[in-house]
Every structure is written in C-alpha cells, then in structure tokens.
C-alpha cells in the first residue's frame, strides 16, 4: 500500500472516531446529566495527547526526506532546470539558456537500485519536481529560482517515470511534464 493510501486510511479511521464521539454527545443532549471531575478528565486527556504527539515526533522526524541516503555517496548525479513550461534534464550541469534548450525534452536513462542525486533549480518562477510511477507520486522537491535543491532517490523498479510540475507556475502548468527512463 502506498504512503498516501495509508494516510487516507488513518484519516478515515480517526474521522470515524471523532464522528462517534460527537454523535454520542449529540444524543446525550436529549436528556439531562452532567460530566463529573471535568478538569481531572481534561488533564488526563491533555497528558495522553501530549505523549502521543511526542511519540509521533520521535517516529516520524527521522523519516524526513532531508536524510534520504545522506550517509552514502550518490552513484549518479542528474541536473534538472525548470522554466515555464518545460524541464531540462541532463547528467551535466545546465548553466546557460543554450544548455537548457539542448536538454529540454531529452529523455535520459538512470540505473535502477542506485542512489541518484537530483540537483534542481529554476530559470524563472517556482516549480515542482515530482516523480510519478504509473500515476502514483513517489517523491518530490520544490524548484525555486536562485536556489539549488538536492533530492537523493533510489528507483527500486525499472521502467519509465513521469516528471510533473507540482507547483502552479502559470497558464500551461498542467502540461509541464517530462520523462526519465530507469533500467
């Protein structure tokens, strides 16, 4: 199951619990009664919630993408430059407009199961660099003019991956895409 679907499942379960709690209270409003020791219950609820938050921080923060393969040397470097409304992707630095024009639309091939470092930047506005496999988003990083963002990624399956712009960048944003071959 993808991370997105796991998140959706957790969300649905939590939403059902919240709806049940509210409906129980909603039904209780038809009769008379009172909650006793409210502040004691509030304090217990607070400390359980705080403990849950600390636990979730401890589990999730180390999984942040900034650490992906941080201790290993990338086996291949790929340079990506975005410009309304195309990506130029090359194994060589893209420094000029001519470099961009030469690489735009060219489909490169990278090895499967190896660490690839994508260095992404923009020549104009903010864009998004995202990797899709069969319609499922695998990884992404923002592309900002004046900055170089680096994403390390290991393709675990061979095949053709779609690259979509995921940050609104202007009128042809939805058609801004490229492909990368993994084998």
């Amino acid at each position, binding site marked *: 199951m993808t991370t997105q679907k796991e998140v959706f499942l957790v969300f649905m379960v939590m939403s059902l619990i919240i709806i049940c709690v509210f409906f129980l209270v909603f039904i209780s409003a038809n009769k008379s009664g009172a909650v006793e020791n409210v502040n004691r219950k509030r304090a217990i609820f607070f400390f359980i919630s705080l403990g849950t938050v600390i636990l979730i921080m401890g589990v999730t923060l180390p999984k942040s993408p900034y650490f992906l393969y941080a201790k290993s040397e990338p086996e291949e470097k790929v340079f990506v430059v975005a410009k309304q409304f195309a990506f130029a992707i090359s194994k060589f630095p893209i420094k000029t407009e001519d470099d961009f024009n030469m690489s735009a639309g060219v489909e490169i091939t990278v090895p499967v199961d190896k660490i690839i470092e994508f260095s992404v930047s923009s020549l104009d506005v903010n864009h998004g660099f995202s990797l899709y496999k069969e319609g499922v988003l695998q990884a992404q990083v923002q592309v900002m003019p004046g*900055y170089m963002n680096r994403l390390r990624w290991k393709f675990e399956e061979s095949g053709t991956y779609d690259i979509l712009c995921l940050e609104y960048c202007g*009128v042809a944003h*939805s058609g801004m895409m490229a492909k990368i071959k993994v084998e």
Partner: protein
Amino acid sequence: MDITTNKKTTLLWLITVLVVFLVAIIFGLTMRMGQAELVNLNPVNFYVLMTSHGLLMIGVWYVAGMAGIQYLMSRYLTVPRWSSVFAYVCTILGIVVLLTATFFAKFHASWYFLYPLPFLATGMEIGPLLFFIALTILGVGWLVWSVVLVATILKKYTIVQALGWHHLAGKTEPAVSPFILISFVSIIGVICCLLAAVVLLVLYYIEMFSKGAFTNDPLLMKNLTFFFGHTIANEMLYMGLAVLYELFPGMVGKPAYKSTWYVVLAWNATLLIVLFAYFHHLYMDFAQPLALQYAGQIITWLAPLPSVCVTIFSVLVTLYGSKMKWSLASLLYFFGVMFWVIGGMGALLDAVIANNFVLHNTQWVPAHFHTYNLLGNVFFSLAFASWFADEIAPEKIKPGTVKIIFSLLVIGGVGFLLAFYLGGALSVPRKVNMYNEVVSKGISLAQMAVAFASLYFLGMIIYTFDFIKRCVGQLFS
C-alpha cells in the same frame, strides 16, 4: 455606536458576505466543472477563476469574523463606528479592484501569488499593479479596523489584563471574558500577519518600479507570503471561535464561559503557536534551514493541544446532558466544531514531513483546508448570522427550512471534500486546469465534486434567500 446602527452595520456586512460567498462558490464550481470536462474553460480563464475564488473566500470569511466581533464587542466596550465603515468601504473597493485585475486584466498568479509569478502570469501589463493595489486597499482597511479594535480594548484593560494574565495570578477583577481574550489574541495575530503583508507588498512595489534594478529573494518572499496567508486563514477561524465562546453556552442554556487559568494559558499559547506554524508550507523547499523545517512539524503538532483540550473539550462537556433545544445556529456551531477537528486531523497528517513528501500540492491540501473552512469556519460564521437573524428579524426560520439547509450543507460538503481526499490518496495534483494522462483519475473525482458542491450551493442559496427575506427590512427600519 448606538444599538440600532450597530445592528444595521452588522446586517449590511452579513448580507455582503453571503452574496460574495455565493459568487465565490460559482467560481469554484465552474473550476471543478472545467476539470470534470463538463464545460470547456480555457486555461487563462480557469486560473483567473482560481485566483479570484481563493482571495474572495479568504477575504469574505475574514470579514465575517470581523462582523461578529464588532457586533458582540459592543456588549463590553464602545467600539467606534468609523473604523467598521472604513473597513467595509475598503473591502468593497478592494474586491472591485481585485475582480478588475483578474477578469478584466486577466491576472492569474493564484491566491498566494508566489514570487516572482505575479510578474510572469500578468495577463495585461497592468494586471500585477491592479492586483497589488487591491491587496493594499484590503490590507489598509483591515489593518486600521484591527488597530482601532485593539486600541479600544486597551482603553478599558491593560495589555496584561487583555491577555488574561491577572487571572493566572489568581485575581478575579477585572473579569475578562473569553470573548475579549480570544478577540484580543486573534487581532494581535492579524496585525502581525498584515504587517508581514505590508512588507511583502512594499518589496513587490519596489521591484516593480525599479525596472530591474532591484530583485527580491524568492525564499524570503515565500516565507513572507505563507506567514501572511497561513496566519490570516487561522486567525479568521479563531475570530469565529471568539464568537462561539460568547454565544454557545447561552444557546445550550448554560452559564457563560469564564477565563479560567487553562483558557488563558491555551489562548496565550495559541497566539505564539499560530505565528510559527506556517513553516510547514515550505517542507519541500530543501533550501530552507533544517531547524525551521523541524520547528514547523513540532509547532504544528503542538497547535491542537490547547484547542482540543480546552475549546473542544468544553463544547462537548457543555452540551453533554443539557436537554438542548436545537436551532440552526447551535447545529452549525456544534457540527462546525466536529468538522474543524476532522479538517485539523487531515492537516496534521499532511504536516508530517515524511507524509508531505507525497502529499504536498496534491488534492490532500485543498481537502483539509476546505474541511475546516467550508464546514468549520463558514459554519461558525453562518451560526452567528443565524443567531443574529433570530435576534433582529420579526419572524423565526421555519423548522423545515432548517432541516433542508443543514442537510444540503452537510451532505454536499462532505461529498465535495471526499473527492479531494480521494484525490490526495490517488496522487492527483491540485491547481491544474485539466488532468493529463498521468493523473486522469482526477476527472471522475471532479465530476463527483461537482455533484456534491451543487448540493452545498443549493443549501447556501436557500440560506441566503431566507436570511435576506427575514432581515432586509431591518436595514430600512
């Protein structure tokens, strides 16, 4: 301000809010129809609608919060009339200039207009200038209103008292109601984010008029944009909650809430937390300092603690065993809180950096923010408007109408949002005018959204018609 004038001013605000809301829904519905391939929208027109829809929605529900606070504040203080009128005029003028920038000049840089896109999604050359003028007018009107309100509160209370700190020290006098405390805390936050907007706009103006001699830093501009956008979106919800604290206990037949130590602590904590939670918008900007990324996740996850343990806990305890007689206002308040919690859960899951890696800029984002706006904050403001209508109108709303409106809003809203959540789970991107072959699943989800959003829209038409029919005579009485 005398009572009659205060009522008329509030009524004018609310009618304006409801009418603009209907227009903004039409914009959103048309966008979803375009994505569903039910109508043929050219890309520029789609993004013109998207820019207008986003800004109108944020603006109109912020203004609804202002109307509620302005009206109820007169229970405690004499609030000057001129600042409310000034803010109203600026709001109307700002909306007119904004719609001129988008529909006439075809400016289409989206509601959060990330630098430097406004200079490259201009439509006509005058587009960005008109757009920035619109934001300046809105910002000045709201900033003046906010500063006047804070000054009015500080005429009666010291800062320490307005923040409720004397209650923490065990003093009972002067009693500061939660309404005053939350309004004060929220307006301080609003002033902070509007000042950030001023800096942002000044930087845009300087670059625009320097003719290339000066350029801005994109990362700084992005931080300023989200500090403004995220904070104002949250503060408008808190303004709705200030009104809830004031009205809900009375609807349930319970004594008014008091500023107990935990209420004071919770809202002082919220004041700080909300100002630093915006970092989660920049998780995927790996150039942002790492410490700020972690701060974003930790602060965002701490934010619900005061809300859940104080506000939501109190609402549930207040209602439990209360022998409640439900009205449209109390239904909207109670279920608005429920949907606020559900939307918050969606936001928290997205605020885990590891999840954001595959959810950022997918439809999970509009899913959660529409949940706590469309079914949370909007419900809070509609609840205030319903309560207000019952206060001033000669006739009450019919029970059958309550059932129809509430059912349409909830069924329509939930179905509309579910299409977004499913879109997030299926990697469908947001902010696209059409779904290309990679993400074509978005088309059927958009069709589902159109069907349910139409129900919500119908509910709002009935609500607005009923509200105006019952209340409009009071404007001229």
